[in-house]
């Protein structure tokens, strides 16, 4: 049976100049018409330059890469960037390693962070009342619950700060607050999927609304989103198209709400697609939350 080359195989051959003329012509037609394929071609070009620098190519391929992709001034710039990135990725500092399991002290930090996040989520009822007093904008007092990155912690990884006495004080439910009680769960796309990617969300009794806030850092090109939430049995609870991000604390964020009554304890999957103007929708990394029902008292 004849193996049909995949797009990345075709592009690699095209960039190396080994694709037959007719196929190259056809591929170029697609490259003009398909933005994603064009982007993939530029990505594979950069991969070839990086592989060339690392000495991973056969001599003939290396020669082709240097001649075809790295001989123009722009090509040299790209090769220089690939070399610098290879060098930076090799260097011990300030490069961040990417272990699936964080080192012991980092894990402790995350355990603490998870505890802090859970406390904050539990305190969400009165927090919402406070938020409403701010006109619906996120209060700067609220720590952000983020997807735990599967990377070693650096100083600029977002870790919730210790809850200040001010938060603790304001977290008590205020008597007679008439607003529907809401719990907010903050998540972030573009983080790695792994054991840490399921976010635990405690929903206290009396909660009426669960608000999902999904951070979109690094996706500035995507303008409109499709968000779907599935319950543990796979049933779609929410299927919202055309969601446009809001800017919250300087971060583009998708905000969707679900009635808390539709979220019994269990694991929920959140699927997101983003669309850049003039492009097809792009599936983004799935997220999940584990809903835990808080007990009274």
């Amino acid at each position, binding site marked *: 049976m004849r193996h049909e080359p995949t797009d990345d195989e075709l592009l690699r051959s095209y960039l190396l100049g080994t694709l037959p003329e007719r196929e190259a012509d056809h591929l170029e037609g697609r490259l003009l018409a398909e933005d994603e394929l064009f982007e993939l071609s530029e990505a594979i070009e950069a991969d070839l330059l990086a592989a060339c620098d690392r000495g991973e190519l056969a001599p003939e391929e290396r020669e082709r890469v*240097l001649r075809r992709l*790295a*001989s123009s001034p722009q090509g040299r710039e790209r090769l220089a960037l690939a070399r610098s990135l290879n060098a930076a990725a090799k260097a011990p500092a*300030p490069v961040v390693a990417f272990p699936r399991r964080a080192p012991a002290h980092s894990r402790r930090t995350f355990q603490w962070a998870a505890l802090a996040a859970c406390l904050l989520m539990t305190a969400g009822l009165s927090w919402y009342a406070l938020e409403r007093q701010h006109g619906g904008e996120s209060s700067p007092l609220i720590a952000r619950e983020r997807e735990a990155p599967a990377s070693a912690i650096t100083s600029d990884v977002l870790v919730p700060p210790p809850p200040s006495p001010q938060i603790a004080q304001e977290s008590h439910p205020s008597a007679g607050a008439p607003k529907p009680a809401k719990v907010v769960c903050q998540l972030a796309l*573009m*983080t*790695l999927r792994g054991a840490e990617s399921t976010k635990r969300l405690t929903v206290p009794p009396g909660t009426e609304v669960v608000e999902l806030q999904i951070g979109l850092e*690094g996706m500035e090109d995507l303008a409109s989103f499709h968000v779907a939430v599935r319950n543990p049995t796979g049933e779609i609870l929410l299927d919202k198209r055309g969601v446009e991000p809001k800017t919250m604390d300087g971060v583009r964020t998708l905000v969707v709400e679900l009635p808390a009554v539709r979220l019994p304890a269990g694991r929920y999957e959140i699927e997101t697609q983003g669309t850049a103007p003039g492009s097809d929708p*792009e599936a983004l990394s799935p997220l999940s939350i584990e809903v835990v029902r808080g007990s009274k008292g």
Partner: protein
Amino acid sequence: MRPGGGTPRGERIQGLTTESFDALLAQLAPDRERAGELYETIRHKLVRLFEWRGCASPEDLADETINRVARRLAEGIELRSNDPYGYFCGVAHLVYKEVLRRAAREHRAIESGDWPPPSSLADDEPSDERLECLRRCLQQLPADQRDLVLRYHQGENNIRNRQALADQMGIPMNALRIRVHRVRRKLESCVHSCLSR
């Protein structure tokens, strides 16, 4: 927007009348701003296609292609709405073949272009200045993007490394490539401006 001035990159368009330029934009999209964006995208893609073909002056060839398309449109040819790029592609191939024939006539190898031979490029080390700029630019990235691009470029077991990364993120390998490339584009532009200072 007009040929010879203003946006998009009108100053690059030589030998193109206002009528033919307007005809081009009108065929690309009814909205002039959108048409301008499409024009920029098509031009960028044509430049890269000529580069990937090994042509020495990809920008000139892209402009020549666009000029010819625009002139034909001004004469009344219509782009097929289901494949407006097909016509650009066909004209680009003609332009490329002319370049090949000209190069053959001049006994010049097109692949080497007008640039110095690649042997001098093969083993250059990145300069300290460039590395320093890259480090600064990396620090400006959100942590997850920085980690992603560095992990992607780690040398040992590179292929397995990337597959593991794609698996962790729950996305196909090509989606990972594109995602990393978007970060790399930001770095490219940041390093470029850092070095220009």
